Structures are given as structure tokens and as C-alpha cells.
């Protein structure tokens, strides 16, 4: 790892100032992705800005929305009674990230800001139609993800919390890489009174995406049979040593049906 200066600002305003003023500064949330990246010398920040003293943790429920502080850890999301009762798909999703020790450090905001194409949370945010709150604005999920490792966040912009509407039903199904625990294909489905949203992670070269054909079919009939005949083309899907793009295309159908069966 290259050396860097470490800073731990005590206020959001200070953290934004440091990150905005220095193009070579990097925000550190739980560090479960950033530290391995730094070890591999894939990134060389001059300054690492630790966000852990900004008070951005906690889970609250209000008026049909669950709000999760950006620095809330996977372990807290997986075990939270409100999330388990109201968005069980999200609690289950958090329990499948990495392993126990990783879940004790990794955060939801850190994962969303990184937008790894195989990360889990982007599918929950997109399927639930959530909203990202930052130090300066709110960003709808549909506008937030802009391709692999790319988001709408500006230089120095920090996610402070995530608002997730409570659906009638939700579920997450994940076909895991057995070594890394990342999703080869992960499907989050959410049923609301006005329709169904279904988002897929791990599969596309552009990162998380909504499967609109499945959404339409499921909004009319929320059952695995409704999407049994839908074929997903392999164009634009990832192909690597773990799974070809054709295999991922097939998995999208299988895993989506399992997710719907679990939610229904």
C-alpha cells in the first residue's frame, strides 16, 4: 500500500471541505472495499478521510419510510427488528454480504457510493425506489447509478442517509461467488400497491439495472409463473471465469423466479 495522510474530521462540513478541496482525497467508510483496493495499489489517494466521527449511523421508521444512516453497518441492518419486519428482503440481503467480520465493518453508504457492479445494496435501493440524501441534495435511485463504479455523486459529496419506502412485499435472492461472496446474479423484488419493481445486480457490464419486462408481468400477476417465459438476452452482460454472459442471462430468469416465490 502506498502511504497517505489520514484525517478524521469531526463534522460533515469539515469532511466535505477536505474532500472537495483535494482531488486526491478519498472517503473511508467501513473500509472493507477501499482498504483491499489500496493494498492492491489500484488507487493512490494522498489523503484518506475517515467518516466515522460524523454521526451518520442509525435506523429510523417514519411514515412508510425507513431511513438508514450512511455509516450504518451491514450487521446492524441484518439484525434490525424494524427492517426484518418491514423490508425482510433488505435484512436478508445484508446478512449475505461478505462474512461476519466484514459485516461488522462494512457500511451501506460506502457500498452505494462505490457502486460495484456485483455489490448487493444497489439492487435494494433501485427496486425499492429509494432516495439518497447527501450533504447538499437528494438523489432518486433511478438517477443515482450511472454505470460500473460510477454514481451521480460529485467530487467531495458525501451520502448522509438512505430513505427506503416500505413495500407490501420484498425479497432478495443471490447466486454467490463461493469465494468472494459477491453476487454473480442478485435479484431484489419489491411489490408496492401501485406496481412491482425488480432490480438485478452482478450481471450487467453497466452495473445494477431494472428488468422492466419482468416488472410489467409481475405488476399484472405477482407469481413466478408470470415471468417464466421471459428470456433475458446475454448482450451487455458480464462474462468472466466465474460465469459466461449466457449463463448469467439464464440465471437472471431462475433467480428472479426464486425471489418472487420467496416474496409472494
Amino acid at each position, binding site marked *: 500500500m502506498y502511504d497517505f495522510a489520514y484525517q478524521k474530521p469531526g463534522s460533515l462540513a469539515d469532511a466535505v471541505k477536505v474532500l472537495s478541496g483535494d482531488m486526491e482525497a478519498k472517503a473511508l467508510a467501513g473500509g472493507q472495499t477501499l482498504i483491499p483496493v489500496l*493494498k492492491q495499489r489500484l488507487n493512490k489517494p494522498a489523503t484518506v478521510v475517515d467518516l466515522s466521527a460524523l454521526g451518520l449511523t442509525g435506523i429510523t421508521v417514519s411514515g412508510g419510510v425507513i431511513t438508514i444512516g450512511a455509516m450504518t453497518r451491514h450487521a446492524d441492518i441484518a439484525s434490525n427488528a424494524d427492517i426484518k419486519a418491514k423490508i425482510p428482503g433488505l435484512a436478508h440481503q445484508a446478512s449475505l454480504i*461478505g462474512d461476519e467480520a466484514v459485516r461488522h465493518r462494512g457500511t451501506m453508504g460506502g457500498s452505494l457510493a462505490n457502486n460495484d457492479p456485483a455489490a448487493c445494496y444497489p439492487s435494494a435501493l433501485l427496486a425499492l425506489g429509494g432516495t439518497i440524501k447527501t450533504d447538499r441534495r437528494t438523489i432518486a435511485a433511478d438517477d443515482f447509478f450511472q454505470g460500473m463504479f460510477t454514481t451521480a455523486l460529485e467530487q467531495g459529496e458525501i451520502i448522509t442517509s438512505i430513505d427506503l419506502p416500505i413495500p407490501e412485499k420484498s425479497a432478495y435472492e443471490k447466486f454467490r461467488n463461493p469465494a468472494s461472496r459477491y453476487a454473480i446474479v442478485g435479484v431484489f423484488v419489491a411489490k408496492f400497491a401501485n406496481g412491482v419493481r425488480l432490480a438485478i445486480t452482478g450481471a450487467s457490464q453497466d452495473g445494477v439495472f431494472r428488468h422492466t419486462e419482468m416488472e410489467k408481468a409481475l405488476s399484472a400477476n405477482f407469481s413466478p409463473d408470470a415471468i417464466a417465459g421471459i428470456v433475458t438476452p446475454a448482450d451487455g452482460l458480464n462474462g468472466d471465469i466465474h460465469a459466461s454472459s449466457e449463463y448469467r442471462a439464464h440465471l437472471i430468469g431462475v433467480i428472479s423466479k426464486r425471489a418472487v416465490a420467496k416474496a409472494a
Partner: protein
Amino acid sequence: MAQVTLTVNGKQHTVEVEGRTLLVELLREKLGLTGTHIGCDTSQCGACVVHIDGISVKSCTQLALQADGANILTIEGLADADGTLHPMQEMFREHHALQCGFCTPGMVMTAVDLVQSHPEGLSEKEIREGLEGNLCRCTGYHNIVKAIAAAHPLMHAQAAE
């Protein structure tokens, strides 16, 4: 260089470190606590697991400076001062839960947190799932699972005293 002050196994230390110094490097190289192992260095194997404020964490994926003010427990701090083994260590010995021993410090630290955070009991499945971030290359999982199951009632009986 920057300064970090932390408590390790009940003793406070102030150490000069670089920004990039990992917690595991501080423990092994600055404090000489080599019981915490570096296996994969890619956050997968769990040989480096220690407790930070009571919670199991991979110390190879944590900057030393992030631990400023924290209370760290390593494998060296688990037994009593008189050498009496912690129930988890005792059960690892009794059930022959190790062969080469390289993964053992991380296994024990993960297991202690797992048992402490599940006072209601642990099924075999839950134990195996709880160990998913700890790799043993001697294929010793079966006896490790037995040791953890046996340590559960001992640890909770001790905690209740």
C-alpha cells in the same frame, strides 16, 4: 507519522504509525503480539480476526489509526493471567479443533464473538455460517464446530456467575 493510542488486552499503548499502517501490523510489529496471524491479506481467510470494542473484525482490513481510542482484544488476552485457558481455548484443545494451528487464533476470536452474541444458543448450521469468514486449510472444520458447540454452555455459565 501520526500517533495512535489504544488499549490492547487491557494495557494502554501510544504508538507512532503511518497512515497506511494496518492494525494487524501494529499488533505484530510494533507490539510484538504475533498470535494474530496474516494469512491471505485479502480479507478472506480470517486468521487476523481480533475484537475491537468486543466485536470480531479482520485486523488486516482496518487501519491502525481507525482504532484510535479503541479497546482491542487479541488471542494473547483471552486466557487468564495465571494461564488458565478461556473455555473456547479449552474446548478447542479437548476436541482437537486444530491441526497446523495457523488459522486457530482467528477461529477462536471469531468463535468467542459468535457465542457471546448468541446467548440463546447456536445450531450447527449457525456455527458453520458464523465461520464463513475463517478458512482452515487442514480441513479441520468438523472439530472446530464441535468445540464451539461445547464452549457455548461453558461460556454462558461462566458469564452468569
